[in-house]
């Protein structure tokens, strides 16, 4: 039987989400923004696993199941992000998002 502090885990994923949020807001490189999104997404998936692991009964299994589906979603998102990255690089010759102004009026 393993006993662990749930509050510590929640604090960890909150801190990771804050790091990801900071990265999304400050970085100018498209790849770094993708990585920051991944950090924030991992923090969110971790939360599902915690509440699944720390609850008893079959309802706790739902957390792990949702986490499996979410890992698939996150991988899909990286693939689309990479396609946008390549299209942006071909169009502008750079991956600096400050120069991606195609949709500006």
């Amino acid at each position: 039987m393993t006993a662990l502090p749930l509050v510590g885990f929640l604090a960890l994923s909150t801190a990771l989400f804050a790091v990801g949020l900071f990265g999304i807001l400050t970085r100018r490189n498209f790849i770094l923004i993708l990585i920051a999104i991944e950090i924030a997404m991992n923090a969110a998936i971790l939360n599902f696993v915690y509440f699944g692991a720390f609850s008893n009964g079959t309802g706790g299994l739902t957390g792990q199941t949702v986490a499996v589906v979410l890992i698939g979603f996150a991988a899909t998102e990286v693939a689309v992000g990479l396609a946008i990255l390549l299209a942006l690089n071909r169009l502008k010759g750079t991956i600096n998002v400050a120069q991606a102004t195609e949709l500006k009026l």
Partner: protein
Amino acid sequence: MPVLGDPKVSLEEVAFLVLAVVALLTAVAALLVRELVHTILWIAVFFVDISAIYFLLEAPFLGVLQLGVYAGAVTVLLLFGVMLTRKRIFSREAATGLDAVPLALALVTFIFVVTSVGQLPQSNQTVTSYDPSLLSENLFGPFGPWLLLLGLLMMGAVAGSIYLVREGRE
């Protein structure tokens, strides 16, 4: 299991503390180093660390999935992104400093959520372990529509990605 003769500290708690510190440090390092390839190295360590947390929480299937999908596939995809968009792989980024407003926003978010977390019970909770076969039954039983949706989404994403990067568009 007691550690260092102190019955109040268990091996699992020490493991969690180490993993948490490593996760935070690697996440911050990945966003702050100037060399993009080093960023991807740090993020690979971060993904392996998260996988270890899954093993600690007695979710071995998720741990293996994290290793395969994130530490394997996503890291290689990001490396391909660097490789395809640069003439020289090892070239430094222009420095992007620590802007005050986003840093403050991240800190406020952290404090806001952590204070609400403080209302939960502080004591240690027991971790329930589940058989991976139960997980599979759940995934293909009640969560079947989700899985189909995930498959459709991935198919759409593949089609969209190919459309975005195809040759000879205007």
